[in-house]
């Protein structure tokens, strides 16, 4: 590029393609970008690919969604259906529903594209969720990635918003019932609820404005915000570099993996088509949201088995679990002549509020408790952070209980049990489930750590019993090779950080709380085997046998 200004003859490519490429490159600087990005190293692990799945699903959503906008008409004007689906012929419905039916039955490839769009949406949110679980349980949210974790949480909320606004668009009975629930939740907000509802729906529910408003949010605002957040998210991934699982030769100062170009990029590109293929196959062979079954929305009919799509399910489940009365006390109360519908407000907002608050703040909570402000690029195996893993599982189980409650009617009919019993059990699990999950997970993690430690110190059980000359029987333990052993001993194990006085010599109550939490986190930690312990374990007796077995001794 600098050749032009000097006396040297400018580089001229030999082929036409080469000349065009050079022309573009000398103006855009693409080769520089490619050189930089092509050498970016990514560690390879299957669990690192869910973010990619989410990204690809989003691309598929944009493509299929664009197709759908060509034919969808977000109008709530009344019309009589005149398309080719016989059971709805002549039925009065909104233009939105009619055009959704036309996409399904009268636009070539329309039903396929609708199903691609909807399956991709479900997969999008699912892969976002799994990706976040991976990030949480491996501790990838720690410095320097706290902000990226927050962006990810925002993306989850936006994904849910995108999904919900889309779910409501066809104006069929199912989506209308869903909107009615949202309307009820909004109206349960004290004082301002009714005003917000009237503002949103342009009058009394359902009004004639909500579909076109949701449509604008669905195709413009929410995707734009998602795109913006994805750009920030990926930018930060590039800045921070990717995390890696612990392993020999891996530490916080390096990234062990493959460069992006060419193999990794090809793999990633290929993976896009795999995801697209899986979604296309699902769309081709499995019905999703058969709107023709549900009929047009009308506030009077309500269908059995009305549920939201899975990602809103936990809110619906919480609503289903909430009793209207506690003993003789009505949860719905009247104060100052106003009705306060706490039996809708509490379940709709409180569990989701707690989940998201903990999710957003968790990196800072852990940072505060552990006083750990170092950069972490090597991930934790979930068992090596027992308390975090247990907290995560408690939250996960809590979510799953509410999630299951959204399908309580189907659990009842398909397992032949009483709907009431399902509800009672889930209500109990709502409170007890997370506690059980916490205790069990923590114990399992600690047990696995002890097993790791045992194996690191004494090797793997071979199942071979040897009789020593003096008559004693022992089982031969085969020592691990160094690579395997590294995985079992090479992890960080934070310790309890006792309360320390501040500069005035005072142990503040906040510091005491922190110390309490630190004790709660780490008091029963299982320390990794130290080199000295490994050495000692090795010299303790069956050297003779091992020597006889011809196995090499452990060295460091």
């Amino acid at each position, binding site marked *: 590029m600098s050749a032009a200004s000097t006396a040297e003859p400018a580089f001229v490519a030999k082929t036409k393609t080469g000349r065009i490429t050079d022309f573009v490159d000398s103006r855009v600087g693409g080769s520089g970008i490619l050189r930089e990005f092509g050498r970016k190293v990514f560690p390879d692990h299957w669990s690192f690919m869910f973010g990619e799945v989410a990204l690809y699903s989003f691309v598929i959503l944009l493509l299929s969604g664009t197709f759908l906008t060509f034919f969808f008409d977000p109008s709530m004007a009344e019309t009589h259906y005149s398309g080719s689906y016989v*059971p709805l012929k002549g039925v009065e419905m909104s233009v939105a529903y009619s055009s959704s039916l036309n996409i399904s039955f009268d636009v070539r490839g329309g039903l396929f594209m609708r199903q691609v769009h909807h399956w991709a949406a479900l997969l999008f949110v699912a892969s976002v969720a799994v990706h976040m679980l991976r990030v949480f349980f491996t501790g990838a949210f720690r410095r320097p990635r706290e902000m990226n974790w927050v962006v990810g949480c925002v993306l989850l909320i936006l994904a849910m918003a995108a999904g919900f606004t889309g779910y409501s668009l066809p104006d069929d009975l199912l989506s209308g019932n869903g909107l009615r629930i949202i309307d009820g939740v909004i109206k349960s907000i004290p004082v301002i609820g009714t005003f917000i509802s009237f503002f949103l729906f342009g009058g009394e529910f359902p009004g004639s404005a909500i579909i076109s408003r949701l449509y604008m949010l669905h195709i413009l605002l929410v995707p734009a915000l998602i795109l913006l957040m994805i750009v920030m998210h990926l930018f930060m991934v590039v800045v921070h570099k990717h995390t890696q*699982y612990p392993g020999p030769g891996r530490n916080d100062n390096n990234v062990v993996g493959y460069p992006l170009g060419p193999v990794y990029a090809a793999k990633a590109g290929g993976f896009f088509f795999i995801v697209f293929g899986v979604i296309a196959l699902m769309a081709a062979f499995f*019905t999703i949201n058969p709107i023709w079954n549900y*009929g047009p929305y009308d506030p009077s009919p309500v269908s059995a088995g009305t549920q939201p799509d899975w990602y809103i399910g936990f809110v619906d489940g919480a609503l289903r679990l909430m009793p209207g009365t506690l003993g003789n006390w009505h949860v719905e109360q009247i104060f100052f002549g106003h009705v306060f519908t706490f039996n809708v407000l509490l379940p709709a907002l409180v569990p989701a509020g707690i989940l998201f608050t903990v999710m957003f703040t968790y990196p800072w909570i852990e940072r505060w408790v552990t006083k750990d402000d170092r950069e972490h690029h090597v991930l934790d195996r979930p068992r090596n952070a027992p308390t975090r893993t247990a907290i995560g599982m408690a939250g996960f189980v809590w979510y799953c209980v509410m999630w299951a409650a959204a399908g309580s009617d189907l659990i009842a009919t398909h397992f032949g049990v009483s709907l009431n019993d399902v509800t009672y059990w889930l209500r109990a699990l709502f409170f007890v489930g997370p506690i059980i999950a916490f205790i069990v997970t923590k114990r399992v993690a600690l047990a696995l750590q002890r097993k790791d430690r045992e194996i690191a110190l004494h090797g793997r059980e071979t199942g071979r019993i040897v009789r020593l000359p003096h008559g004693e029987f022992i089982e031969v333990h085969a020592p691990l090779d160094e690579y395997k052993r590294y995985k079992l001993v090479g992890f960080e194990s934070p310790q309890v950080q006792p309360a320390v006085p501040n500069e005035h010599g005072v142990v503040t109550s906040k510091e005491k709380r922190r110390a309490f939490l630190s004790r709660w986190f780490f008091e029963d930690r299982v320390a990794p085997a130290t080199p000295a312990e490994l050495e000692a374990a090795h010299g303790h007796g069956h050297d003779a046998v091992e020597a006889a077995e011809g196995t090499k001794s452990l060295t460091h």
Partner: protein
Amino acid sequence: MKALSQKRRHPLAAIALLLMGLLITGGLYAVATTMNQAKASTTTASASDVEEGGKLFAANCATCHGMGASGSKDGPSLVGVGAAAVDFQVGTGRMPMQMNGPQAMKKPVQFNEQQTSQLAAYVASLGAGPAIPADDLTNGGGDAAAGGELFRTNCAMCHNAAAAGGALTRGKFAPALADVTGKHIYEAMVTGPQNMPVFNDANITPEGKKNIITFLKQIESSGSPGGADLGSLGPVAEGLFVWVAGLGVIIAFTIWLTSRTS
């Protein structure tokens, strides 16, 4: 009118009003309840059918429903339930009931057609009730779209908009309606078996019932345009499918893609 306004404070005026009100209510009620029975027992059952049915009833049903179908603590009286109720309950195998439970379950039919009609004739002879509907009302041929609207308004809240069934309280449920004959659907509507309410002819006209049956048969025969219907159970089945099958296949691919390294 002048006479009326003069006599309105007569000591007997209140009683007269009360009588009038009672007469009107009673009269309307009588009309409303007999509307459903307008076609009651039009099918002619021979005396021998009734007699045979009576024997069958005494042998198979009287344990719970009592001799003469007068009811016992284990089963309700069947006087006045009509032939349609018997044809539905016995014809779908729900009766005789296998065991007590939240509701009688559908099971292999215990009686042949002749025996069923004899039982029906016997029960119909005990008191007027809905008769077995005529074929032209149960064979479809109505307006599917109109039937769909009626179905969504009256039936979908329990049976699901796609007639896939749904849960009720305490182990009771509304069954899926695929593979149920038009006759049984009609009879269920007029007799209200188990937990189902009665949809009499004043509520949904015979023509409306015919349309509903047409709608149900139509969606049953048109299959699922979008591929396998996952039980027509709505978003729960779809969510389960995307998590288990969709994500499962994708995880298999991610493992395959990264299997050569690390």
